[in-house]
């Protein structure tokens, strides 16, 4: 299926996509890299000379850095833990015979399609508001003092909101993976007298392991970058300033571009570590 003519046509047709993406990646990334070695404050005199690795050092030694790493790890870890665990259970449940399966699935998946700003604000105001939120009504109904979610339990709140958004994703992918499990294999195990729990451990979980890995990797990459959920709720206060949010603040709010760019490079490196694992798996899949 390849003649010179079709090969050159193919190159020509692939070119726009490759050139655009290359430009999209290289140009800004190069600029970020360049900025990261500068003292560059657009609102306070602009370019003020080259500083070598100073920004990199300052970024990691600033008092905001470690808390932001901590926040990032807790949020990403917490969301992953919740979505993967519940996702597996929910996927198995949804795979069982039941009435109205299609509708239930739609209900479960729906949150994924809610735009991040909406879910952030709906949760913040209508559920987590200490005076008028539904949760405060619930707490009062049981005679408890309402929790001031977004300040007293800020991390938990953010984790909750983001988990609500991403649980459908995990569930959907794990469900798809479960459905590709050969039912004969399960039936054979049932014939062999394997009880439910051991079937879960020895057949379902191993079968899911690849999908779980994929869910973890993809979610990690997206979760490292969550922004709007924090932007519309805590604005990074109460210990919810993640790495992404910190960089955003450095760059756009305090307009310290050099420092923010150094942070950006850290973020790129971090994301690439996960991306590399993901690409290994996806790449293996391509060979099949």
């Amino acid at each position, binding site marked *: *299926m*390849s003649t010179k003519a079709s*090969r050159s*046509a*193919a*190159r020509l047709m*692939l070119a*726009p*996509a*490759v050139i*655009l*993406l290359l430009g*999209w990646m290289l*140009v*800004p*990334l190069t*600029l*970020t890299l360049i*900025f990261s070695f500068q003292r560059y404050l657009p609102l306070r005199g602009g370019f003020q000379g080259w500083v070598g690795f100073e920004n990199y050092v300052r970024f990691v030694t600033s008092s905001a850095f470690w808390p932001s790493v901590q926040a990032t790890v807790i949020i990403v870890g917490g969301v992953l833990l919740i979505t993967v665990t519940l996702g597996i259970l929910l996927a198995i*449940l949804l795979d*069982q015979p039941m009435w109205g399966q299609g509708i239930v*699935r739609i*209900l479960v*998946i729906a949150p*994924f*399609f809610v*735009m*991040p*700003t*909406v879910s*952030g*604000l709906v949760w913040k*105001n*209508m559920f987590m508001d200490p005076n*008028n939120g539904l949760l405060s009504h619930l707490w*009062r*109904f049981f005679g408890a003092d309402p929790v001031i979610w977004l300040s007293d339990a800020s991390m938990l709140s953010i984790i909750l909101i983001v988990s609500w958004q991403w649980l459908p994703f995990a569930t*959907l*992918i794990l469900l798809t993976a479960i459905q*590709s499990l050969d039912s004969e294999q399960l039936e054979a195990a049932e014939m062999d007298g394997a009880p439910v729990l051991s079937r879960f451990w020895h057949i379902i979980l191993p079968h899911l392991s690849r*999908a779980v890995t*994929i869910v973890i990797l*993809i979610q990690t990459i997206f979760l490292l*970058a969550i*922004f*709007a959920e924090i932007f*519309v709720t805590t604005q990074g206060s109460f210990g919810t300033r993640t790495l*992404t949010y910190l960089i*955003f603040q450095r*760059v*756009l709010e305090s307009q310290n571009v050099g420092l*923010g760019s150094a942070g*950006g490079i850290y*973020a790129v490196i971090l*994301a690439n570590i996960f991306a590399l694992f*993901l*690409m290994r798996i*996806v790449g293996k899949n*391509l*060979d099949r």
Partner: protein
Amino acid sequence: MARTVRTHRKTLNTALAWGIGLMMFFPILWTMLTSFKTEAQAISDPPVWFFFDWTLENYRVVQERSNYSRFLWNSIIIAGGSTVLGMIIAIPAAWSMAFVPSNRTKDILLWMLSTKMLPAVGVLYPIYLIFIQLGLLDTRIGLTIVLMLINLPIMVWMLYTYFKEIPGEILEAARMDGAGLREEILYVLTPMAIPGIASTVLLNIILAWNEAFWTLNLTAARAAPLTAFIASYSSPEGLFYAKLSAASTMAIAPILILGWFSQKQLVRGLTFGAVK
């Protein structure tokens, strides 16, 4: 005996699944319900569920006060435009890689995927700067291009996995039948790939519609889409739950409907074909 056990289990499953399903859906349902309440009913304790004076007032106010339809229009243009633009670029690219693979194809595909993983915040300022330089800040065209670029890898990948399932012999037959490249893609490949193309379009519209980093950071008043419009409610005055709900409902309803159509494709698209 076994039958009743099975029915029992099915009933149990059903109850459990519906319970969880409704819990997951509840925030959306509650938002939708609230959008039809008055502001006072919206915050009443105990909450009112279904028996309140249903009103469309909030929708009217949202439209009048903040010119909702302008944001909606921006969202439509940006999501739709980036999708169309992306498809024009992605279809030929996917065709190349699926039907004229070279030994670099795999690397290119993986590299494309890696660009999707680039954290936006890492390139925020350069893009911001480029946008200012080119006068693209707060324009629909600028945002359209950015959203097209961030979703291009997903589009190419999805189309690639669909095209891979089409036997190359059919395209060769078209070539023998006198079709040029344009005809081959237009009359043979595209119609055969309609389901795949449709799901790619659908997923891409959803992703673009909900994108909330660039839309928040690169727009101000003119080109702001619904994501930014909703974000303006984060610093509210007075009672606003019902209005927030109305605005939110309008912002998510179209995409919820599209989303329900695209569950299956979603998996393939978001996992880059690694789970099918």
